[in-house]
């Protein structure tokens, strides 16, 4: 105290130190958690893959955080988006938090958290509910018992929703084009985990690395990081922030629409994509219902999807959607070459080219490769 009395200026050291501790402490907590290397017995990539395929858990609940830094240009109606699609659009730009509950394949609940809202997808047996708190609306979909598999696939859609699904998607991409290695153990959500590193052999791919964290004990994927080439931070990251392997209560999966809510029960035909009607025009490579003329050029990581756009069809169905699409494409930079002309969407992980003659080319490659394919 006497030091402070004789030299009042020294008092300022206290708040300064407090500020350093607070800001530094927050930053350090992250790095310590990330660099802690637990000692786990070595395990080969093949062993890990088998572990993952055969992993069997009765239930889990946890919080999943997904961050995307795809380096997309700002697009009207998407990145700055308001309206009902804003939550889903955050999947491609920004950060999302979701809580998941799982108790077997037919009891799943996923809650995507908004600031003062929530979008829930709840599956309980043959019932599937999609609840949107901001619209006060619930969609009820009956799943025929024989269509289970297919329905699940559709839901997974273009953007993986849970680490499990994301890992499945990444594993499906493994073939001779990929170098698979394991690295020092990682720590995800406070649990020891192995890390499986997939590196594309083809250097033309924009994807630098896919790192899959696999729980050392339960063998389920805890997180996926997708790195763009030469990037230090993941362009896409989905990982558990907190996870518990206790089977959640059955009441987590019961949903009764609250009184006053708008309940819709769509026909089977129109229920394919409850969440994201507009998402199809983005990086959707798995759209099986694409019109004829769709083909894949190239192999593995550098394959390019070429599709014909069918504007006439969308016109009648969804005028607003078409308008939005036009606004988006209008904002993209114009490019041209010997292959013709069009508009280019470029991001850290993928490029998309919309040619003026109505073709769409998408791939995890540099634009030059798209031009090459477009010229063929």
């Amino acid at each position: 105290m006497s030091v402070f009395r004789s030299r009042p200026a020294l008092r300022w050291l206290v708040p300064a130190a407090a500020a350093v501790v607070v800001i530094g402490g927050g930053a350090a907590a992250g790095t310590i958690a990330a660099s802690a290397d637990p000692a786990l017995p070595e395990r080969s990539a093949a062993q890990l893959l088998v572990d993952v395929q055969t992993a069997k858990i009765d239930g889990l609940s946890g919080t999943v955080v997904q961050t995307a830094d795809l380096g997309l240009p700002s697009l009207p109606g998407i990145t700055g988006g308001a309206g009902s699609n804003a939550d889903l659009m955050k999947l491609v730009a920004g950060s999302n938090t979701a809580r998941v509950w799982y108790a077997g394949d037919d009891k799943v609940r996923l809650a995507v958290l908004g600031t003062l809202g929530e979008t829930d997808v709840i599956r309980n047996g043959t019932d599937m509910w999609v609840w949107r708190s901001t619209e006060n609306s619930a969609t009820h979909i009956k799943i025929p018992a024989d269509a289970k598999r297919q329905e699940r696939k559709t839901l997974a859609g273009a953007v993986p929703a849970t680490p499990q699904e994301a890992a499945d998607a990444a594993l499906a991409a493994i073939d001779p084009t990929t170098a698979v290695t394991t690295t020092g153990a990682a720590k995800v959500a406070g649990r020891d985990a192995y890390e499986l590193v997939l590196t594309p052999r083809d250097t033309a791919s924009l994807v630098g690395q896919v790192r899959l964290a696999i729980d050392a004990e339960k063998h389920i994927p805890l997180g996926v990081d997708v790195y763009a080439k030469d990037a230090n931070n993941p362009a896409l990251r989905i990982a558990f922030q907190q996870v518990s392997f206790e089977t959640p209560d059955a009441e987590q999966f019961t949903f009764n629409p609250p009184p006053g809510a708008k309940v819709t029960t769509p026909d089977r035909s129109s229920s394919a994509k409850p969440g994201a009607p507009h998402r199809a025009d983005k990086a959707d490579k798995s759209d099986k219902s694409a019109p004829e003329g769709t083909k894949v050029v190239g192999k593995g990581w550098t394959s390019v999807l070429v599709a014909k756009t069918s504007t006439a069809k969308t016109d009648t169905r969804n005028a607003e959607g078409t308008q939005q699409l036009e606004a988006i494409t209008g904002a993209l930079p114009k490019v041209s070459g010997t292959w013709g002309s069009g508009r280019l969407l470029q991001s850290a992980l993928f490029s998309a080219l919309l040619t003026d003659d109505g073709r769409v080319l998408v791939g995890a490659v540099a634009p030059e490769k798209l031009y090459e394919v477009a010229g063929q």
Partner: protein
Amino acid sequence: MSQADTRLSPRFLLSELRLIAVRRRNQAGLAALAAVPVILAAAMKLTVPDAGRGPGQGPDFFSQITGNGYFVALAALGVELTLFLPIAVAMLAGDAVAGEANQGTLRYLLTVPVARTRLLAIKYAGILMGAFLAPLVVATSGLLAGFLLFGAGDVTTLSGTRIGLATALLRLLVICLYLGVCLAALGAVGLFLSTLTEQPMGATIALTMLTVASFVLGQIPQLDWLHPYLLTQHWRDFGELLREPVAWEALIPGLTSAGAYILVFLSAAWARFSGRDVTS
């Protein structure tokens, strides 16, 4: 230093709290805070047969008001959080030290004698009272107006499930406490600003501008690296308490951030105030 300095007597604290409570401007401020939910509820009541606007229109919780008076309190808190509540705290905090200096009473207060650290602590206690009382007043007034005009009942959570009214009221209380902690952090910044000047109005306006600026910066996606450090960033996390089950761990960032702000700015206020010359 005399005996009176070290002895912990509640007298000074009580006199400070009473001083705050009997000030006309503070009473008027509380009345204004309480009036907003009443006006809101009345406006919603008068425009009920407006079927043209579907659900999901208007700000958060507004669409649910007509079904359950409980949501008047939530909607009012959401509305007042951006400006009214910060202004109320800014008024108290700005007044804390600069007000005494401006009136020329700070000198006399310190000759009583009261240690400067203790004076700051008492002043902050007064701000804390305001910070925790203000959301409670808004919520209570909202509940009263809402129940009177729209009735009460089970509450639909953000997850689409229903919880009983008693549980819902308990959660509302926790929401008020959480907002109280958030506003207490704002009050700590205000106390620091108040030690910088002899014009209470200056400190109040500076703090209000800071709040608004923080909200605006929080809306700019290009500045997302800055967002975790913003004072107001986690204020709207109070919605986490309306999920089923409650995401308690989601409140941690907000509470940590508030704690950090309180620590840094209270120590800064101490560094500034105990070292400065009191001239008025």
